[in-house]
């Protein structure tokens, strides 16, 4: 039994050590600002289209589903309220993070994994660079900054998708929809939750991608394995952390 737990315990220790080093390096020199900008471009700008698509279709589907449910109570006019709350609190952060996990946690794991198996990580150490400082910290910072921004974009595009449904299929006016949507959002609770979640998810999925990439062994097959593990672990931890953060906010009396 203890032997079974040994592997995961060592992996957890290594993950938290990497996390500590990556976050500590934010405040230590040398700072690789150019790498952070490049990663922001790759991770953030590169994910823009997919995030817009996810946000739009999430908003459309939510408007259709919520209107169907609200019709039973004669409350179709409240569609904007439900679309706004579900997007800001849950669907925006979680769907954006899952797409980011699929696109970037895997990308990071495969890139760093390839570098590991071709000894580029060792070469980096041999040539006077800390790979955590040079490779991990820029990716973590870039993802932590860009995912909240992308989530805000996804939320607004989702609201736009819901508005299209509202005026085209539900017979609502634009004023009705946007008024209810805007009033539904509580800045202290919804906006904080809607920004905290993507920040935590972004840090987590980038660290998971880096972690699996840097511990890759076994050649190209190992790179494939690391990529898959990064995707699965990121998705699972995003969902677990979502429950935990939601519980904290709901437990505090939030809506």
């Amino acid at each position, binding site marked *: 039994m203890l032997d079974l737990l040994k592997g995961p315990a060592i992996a957890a220790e290594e993950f938290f050590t990497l996390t500590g080093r990556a976050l500590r390096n934010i405040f230590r020199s040398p700072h690789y600002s150019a790498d952070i900008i490049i990663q922001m471009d790759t991770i953030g700008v590169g994910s823009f289209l997919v995030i817009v698509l996810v946000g739009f279709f999430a908003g459309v589907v939510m408007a259709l589903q919520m209107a169907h449910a609200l019709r039973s109570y004669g409350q179709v006019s409240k569609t904007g309220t439900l679309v706004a709350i579900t997007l800001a609190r849950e669907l925006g952060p979680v769907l954006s993070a899952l797409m980011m996990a699929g696109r970037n946690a895997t990308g990071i794991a495969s890139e760093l994994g390839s570098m590991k198996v*071709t000894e580029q990580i060792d070469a980096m150490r041999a*040539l006077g660079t800390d790979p955590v400082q040079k490779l991990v910290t820029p990716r973590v910072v870039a993802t932590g900054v860009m995912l909240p921004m992308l989530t805000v974009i996804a939320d607004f595009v989702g609201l736009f998708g819901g508005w299209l449904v509202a005026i085209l299929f539900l017979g609502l006016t634009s004023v009705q929809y946007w008024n209810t949507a805007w009033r539904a959002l509580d800045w202290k609770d919804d906006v904080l939750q809607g920004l905290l979640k993507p920040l935590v998810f972004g840090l987590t999925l980038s660290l998971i991608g880096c972690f699996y990439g840097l511990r890759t062994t076994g050649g190209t097959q190992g790179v494939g394995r690391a990529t898959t593990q990064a995707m699965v672990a990121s998705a699972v931890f995003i969902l677990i952390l979502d429950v935990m953060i939601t519980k904290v906010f709901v437990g505090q009396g939030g809506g």
Partner: protein
Amino acid sequence: MKSSESPILRFEKVSVAFDGVPALIDVSFAAYASDTRVILGAAGSGKTVLLKTALGLARPDSGQVFIFEKRIDNLKERDLIDIRSQVGMLFQESALFDSLTIEENVAYPLENQRAIHCPPEQIRPRVVETLEFVELGGTLEKFPSELSGGMRRRAAIARAVVTGPRLVLYDSPTAGLDPITAHTIIELLIKHRDVAHTTTLVVTHRYQDGNLVANFRYNSEQGRLEPARNGNGRGARTIFMVLREGRLVFEGDQEQLESSTDEYVSKFVKRRE
């Protein structure tokens, strides 16, 4: 033997294991200034691990490693960076950064090794000079993927030696190369050793590489290799080491190696072409 001199690299009963599997077992040796060490052994015998341990890239489970008389096996990663600036290493598959050009690759240690203190205006001239030394002067703007295997190996040598290290570690410099290119790479290795007077460790599974390294010297006046024997000795020595399953089973000069009756050790000698 050279007891009054401080060794450049010293292993004392070094053992390294990965996930409980031993890779090096009780390895002890000392390499002195301008020495060349040729490390032979079968695949998986611990040759690469030995080089990585010498550079602090792999941590010993027991024993001590000294570079320039400074113990490194207990140093933190950040403290190792300055030590590593005095050591060059050629990795087995070159390990060039594939997202950087050849110029950026070779400039990398000059830009990133704190202890080097290379002024920015001197970086490019040094890179150009080193690339010309390895006869790759026209490849500055190319990416590693645009070069042949032999050229990549030469670019990686340039990156390893651009900082003027006192100790250079070559991990299988001829692996995967055709015989002519392999010969060129060993020529280059000898040329650098004799021009820069470095201590050199060469891991290889080809005896002919060791034979060349042991018996030839670079004549800088004529710009070519010449036999080092018959009065042309280079004033330094080549020691052969043979590893077997992580243990150092032989250490001695070429004559001792060739006269060894050990079945495993003689396997490497018999492959001479």
